[in-house]
């Protein structure tokens, strides 16, 4: 099997949906700018790219019509470069990486752009026309359960208090604030031109938030619950992309090898506690890599909610100093389709920076799933 590497990572600024600076930017345009920047920054010869695999959680409206192909053309890649759209909700663009890795392993291509996008402003979560199966809703309502309620369920089941969730949210905001002020996020961000000017910075973080402010928020999903807007990731507009290629190809073309993909996995779980999805997926991926959690020096755990993040940390026995070193989705935002590419790219970037051997990127997925990728420093 061919060895597969991550050879580049960029993203757009993440901006709050409906009130941020990307509300008037179409998701296909946004993704195309990010893809174009990835190609330019990595120096990958465009004609070599086999496929553009684009993750998107609600691929309809401006995100429809196989947005993967649309973006490939908008980004002015050669027409020979194919394009597809992948939907595994929040795990969509991590799945793009997995698809590429699988193809490269069996010699079905050398270079892939694995990207993700979500404009949660322009295509609402749930889509424009949610049409749930009436019989299934009766039989198993959890399949369609509001993500916030699943976070409440996890908090209850794993006995995670509101205060613990708020401490975690504050940690996310603090890490993000520190990363931003130290300029550690600048390199990965691609400026996005909009009619009202260039957008260059993340818009979601609330660096001034306090424990008191968080404690004052009302429950967002359940009147008697513990999950608030402050302990949930915000609705976000954004795009991210990574370059995935065979190690030999990277060597041949002088591309920067950020990390090797060691293993990956997906796994299903109860939809009502979908936030726990990373646990099983991670265990599977670790086992496939022949590693234990103690081997992992960098963790990118998507912070869909503080409650599920804490439950996963506890269940997997993750060490605090390894987790989301530059902050996480509670502060940065979570554009559903784009997050997988962001945390995979970020894990690869951190592996080098932190001089660690192995990194884990993992996410929970609506409907009851988890996805995980293990990277290895080269």
């Amino acid at each position: 099997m061919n060895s597969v590497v991550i050879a580049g990572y960029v993203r757009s600024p993440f901006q709050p949906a409906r009130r941020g600076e990307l509300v008037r930017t179409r998701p296909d345009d946004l993704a195309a700018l990010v893809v174009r920047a990835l190609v330019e920054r990595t120096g990958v010869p465009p004609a070599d790219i086999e496929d553009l695999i684009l993750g998107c959680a609600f691929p309809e409206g401006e995100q429809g019509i196989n947005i993967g192909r649309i973006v490939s053309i908008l980004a002015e890649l050669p027409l020979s470069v194919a394009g597809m759209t992948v939907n595994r909700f929040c795990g969509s663009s991590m799945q793009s990486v997995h698809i590429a890795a699988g193809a490269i392993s069996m010699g079905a291509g050398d270079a892939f752009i694995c990207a993700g996008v979500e404009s949660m402003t322009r295509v609402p979560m749930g889509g424009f026309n949610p049409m749930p199966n009436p019989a299934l809703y009766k039989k198993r309502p959890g399949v369609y359960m509001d993500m916030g309620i699943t976070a409440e369920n996890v908090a209850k089941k794993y006995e995670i208090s509101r205060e613990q969730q708020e401490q975690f949210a504050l940690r996310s905001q603090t890490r993000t604030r520190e990363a931003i002020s130290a300029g550690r996020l600048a390199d990965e961000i691609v400026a996005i031109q909009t009619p009202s000017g260039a957008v260059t910075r993340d818009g979601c973080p609330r660096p001034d938030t306090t424990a008191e402010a968080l404690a004052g928020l009302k429950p967002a999903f359940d009147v008697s619950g513990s999950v608030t807007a402050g302990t949930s990731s915000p609705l976000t507009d954004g795009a991210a992309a990574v370059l995935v290629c065979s190690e030999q190809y990277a060597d041949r073309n002088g591309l920067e090898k950020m990390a090797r993909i060691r293993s990956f996995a997906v796994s299903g779980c109860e939809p009502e506690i979908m936030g726990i999805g990373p646990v099983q997926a991670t265990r599977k991926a670790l086992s496939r890599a022949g590693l234990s959690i103690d081997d992992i020096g960098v963790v990118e755990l998507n912070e869909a909610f503080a409650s599920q993040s804490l439950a996963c940390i506890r269940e997997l026995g993750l060490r605090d100093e390894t987790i989301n070193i530059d902050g996480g989705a509670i502060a940065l935002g979570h554009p559903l389709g784009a997050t997988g590419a962001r945390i995979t790219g970020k894990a690869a970037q951190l592996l080098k920076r932190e001089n660690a051997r192995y990194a884990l990127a993992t996410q929970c997925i609506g409907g009851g799933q988890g996805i995980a990728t293990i990277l290895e420093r080269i």
Partner: protein
Amino acid sequence: MDQSAKPATAPDSPPALSRICVIGAGVMGSAIAAHIASAGVPVLLLDRPEGDDRSSLAKNAVARMLKTEPAPFMDPAAAKLIQPGNTEDDLGAIAGCDWIIEAIIERPDLKQALYRKLDTVRRPGTPVSSNTSTIPLAALTAGMPESFKRDFLITHFFNPPRYMRLLEIVGGPETDSAHIAKLTGFCDRVLGKTVVKAKDTPGFIANRIGTFWMLVAVRAAIENGLTVEQVDAVIGRPFGIPKTGVFGLIDLVGVDLMPHINASMKATLPPGDRYRAFADDIPLIGKMIETGHTGRKGKGGFYRLTRKDSEKIKESISLTTGEYAPSERFRLPSHIRHASDLMTAPDQHGIYARRVMGETLAYAASLVPEISDDITGVDKAMELGFNWKKGPFALIDEIGPARFAALLQAENIPVPPLVEKVGSGKFYEDRDNIRNAFSPDGTYKPVPRADGILLLEDIRRRGRPVLGDKSGALWDLGDGVACFEITTKMNTFDDGVLALLEKSVSHVKENFKALVLYSDADNFSAGANIGLALFAANMAAWEEIRKLTAKGQTVLKALKYAPFPVVAAPAGLALGGGCEFMLHADAIQAHAELYAGLVECGVGLIPGWGGCGEMLLRLRADPRTPHGPIPATREVFEMIATARVSKSAAEARRMHLLRKDDGITMNRDRVLADAKARALSMAEGYVAPEQPEFRVAGESGRTAFTMAVDGMARQGLVTSHDRTVSGELAIVLTGNGHDVTEIVTEQQMLDLEAASFMRLIRTTPTLDRIGHMLETGKPLRN
């Protein structure tokens, strides 16, 4: 506000003003700017430079107004039409304005300094007006160049400018009459004001009489030993004065304003003016201001609200001790209903009423022609500036001028010459079916109506309706247009109204070209008479309720498919069945102050007269609605399930109650004329609409709505009966089991509405909601 939201303009519409400057971003200036913006006209709002952002005063005023209730803007989007600035950096922009309104602090020296500054930048011939309420025009123009005097006038708006219909316009001897004509036309048609021409005298018309009235009422209350509750009951409903009465009104405008107005009046009124007899300082008011009891904006005024154990307690001040005690409910005896009942009552309330209203009405009568050339200007000013149902002269007519003169004599109040002159006659008389008013020269002259105004009261005066009974009437508006009017309490629907409407549709078909639905009452219609529905439900007369539901559907669809155009001309409330009535017209010409909505869920019901289908059609017809079975349905579902009511016609348009082509009229008195013009424009070649077909979201869609409501229930946002009611609404809107591939006819949609309506009205929580609404006027959250 989009272009189509602009008021309808008749062919004789006034010259458009492309941009207006308002200087002074205080309460009045900023709210005037907001109202102009609501009318679709761009505004430059300036105040003095202050702080780092030198335009912060004006910017903050706009931001503050977006949070103010009642809202100064008819549509928050109108705020974008206001450009905030400051009087130094942005002065040059005034050259691009067609009218400059000054609304700064009431100091002649500062106003004149500003005028001099304006004179260096304004285009020559641009009118400049002051919104002063106390400073005479002569004082403002003294020493100013002749060219300025020609362009200067006073335009006095009332607070709050969006809601108060009165505008007093005052010109000086040098003022160019073209400015008066132009701004009168603009304020009337574009801003929707009733413009009353006042003379350059202290307080102009409304405040001259109104402040006198308040002063006399307070003084007499203290002297006669009445409580504030008694005063507000006496000087309230029987005289057609809002229930705030005198003390409630002073609390609203600010107790601290009284001495300011008093001082200004004393400084400017002629020596022998009757006002001076009452103008000495009132110690209680001084004490209240000292202790911060300046009214609603302060720690309370004559009334205040306190909290005890989270319960609100209303308290009133004692006019003798200045101490507060819980308010006592005071009711006049039931036989006291009209002004004349009180003015002749022998008890202390009669004595008080004679003293206060005798003085006030006599004062008003003594001021014509000093403050206004005619009595109609005075009456209009008090009706629209103080919300009196009848102005002073109409009130004297109600009492009887001769009897009024006798009452004055008995009270030792001088009888004004005008009252003596009218003798045993009346101030208003109908002659040749036209309303005439008594003039100071002793003759009767037709009550002036501005060009293009059509009032139902004038139509009524001309003769009998074409059809009519106690429920309503069908009037002939001329030119082949008929007008259907409801006359029940709050214009509610019952079987009588439906029967008359059905008859009217048949009659119009044979005899007219078009039909307008209109009422000059405060409200277009508050909906179906739910009191009757509750009565029938309590008797288990389900069949009667079913028949009424079916009848409403039949009649409203007959209206919709009639072979002539129907234009609804709603103003005020158009709720529930009243809203459905409006929705069945071919077009709507609404007054800008329209409070419309399908509010049935508030009483545990759903729209049963076709409202659900009509709203679905409106949403689907809007090209901005995303495609697919859900978006349009969701919008309708949310609007009806939350019983949302528009806070203006502009908002009603956003809610799709008004369509893109429907019109909005700013001036209440012009709604009927605009609606008639609209109806006539549609009459030639009119073809009734085709029956629509509905594509519904089916069971999957219903599941989506159920899921959304389940989520809201978890958030504590909906009650258990809300879930039942919204569940029925979802059944109707998603087609009750019809598949997405199937067509649902309009009749099927109506049947679904009726079935859900009948299921809901048979539930106890719905009947509890109706009962609670009838008792308290508020929805029950059960």
